């Protein structure tokens, strides 16, 4: 019961967090960096600690929100507690996998 509540709250909190993060990301990419996405340029940016930290937090927050949202939709079709638990675990596993993949992808720029 409390797990449901915690995940539901986390979905709300990640939504609130994602909003300023996505806005900051768009502003940085389009206006501050002028949309320059050559590998060397992006690599130099990512090597700045602040941009890397922002990207990691954005990745975590958006991925968590996405998979919690997917979980919420799939739960509509859960016919039993066992299937509801399975859906939650699958979504958490997908989140961990996507987040890990994103981190590995970011290391290519370091």
């Amino acid at each position, binding site marked *: 019961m409390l797990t449901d509540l915690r995940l*539901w*709250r986390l979905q709300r909190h990640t939504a609130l967090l994602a909003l300023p993060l996505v806005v900051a990301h768009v502003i940085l990419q389009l206006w501050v960096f002028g949309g320059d996405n050559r590998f060397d340029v992006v690599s130099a940016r990512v090597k700045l600690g602040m941009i890397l930290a922002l990207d990691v937090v954005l990745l975590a927050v958006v991925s968590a929100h996405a998979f919690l949202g997917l979980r919420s939709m799939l739960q509509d079709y859960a016919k039993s507690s066992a299937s509801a638990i399975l859906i939650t675990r699958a979504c958490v596993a997908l989140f961990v996998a996507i987040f890990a993949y994103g981190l590995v992808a970011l290391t290519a720029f370091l």
Partner: protein
Amino acid sequence: MPAAPTRITLQVARSDSSRESTFEVPVPSAHSRVLDALLYVREHLDPSLGFRYSCRAGMCGSCALVVNGKEALACQTAIGTLATDHVRVQPLRALPVLRDVMCDMGPFFDSLKRAGAAMKPLEPDRATIRTMPPAEPRRAAIERQNGCITCAGCFSACEWSATRPGYLGPAAMNRVLMLALDERDAEGRKRLLTVAHENGALRCHALGNCSQVCPVDIPLREGMQKLKGLLATEDLA
């Protein structure tokens, strides 16, 4: 109110047949109710027709059913307001049918029990519960959620009650909201735990069917949003 037809075709779901029965029923006045038409059928055309009613004043909730696809109290639905001479009456959804358009209210009252929707007085030794004056802010917070007649119309209209066994439904959660905000209740905010799960407030999609059919106009959807607000902020651990 538009002019009522002088005669209607009343189509009623029957539990002993897959076909619905059709009756021609006179409508003496624009203010005649669907319940009047059902009573006419039982008295003049088919004494076996099963339906439930009691107060005929919209207070007891006994005569809730589905009229032309929408939950309503038969005793409060004037035929003139339906703007048609074809009236289809079906039993409430999400509840087992006992006979024709009369349902077993058991699952609905079970939802109230599961939600623990009964007050536990903070001062059990008092002879009566303290009256909350109208100007009291606490009362203002719950006033609009008050007055449920437990007709189960919202339970029938809610897409989750009708399809997800175990879902608490709008009436039970509205009651929990009222009690959680009522300072005379000993359980207080702890009550929110009874709805903080996937068969409770977290599953509500806020479509608002419950508010649309409530015969006493309780803003159930808004109440659910208020409930979610409490769940988001209160420390329930």
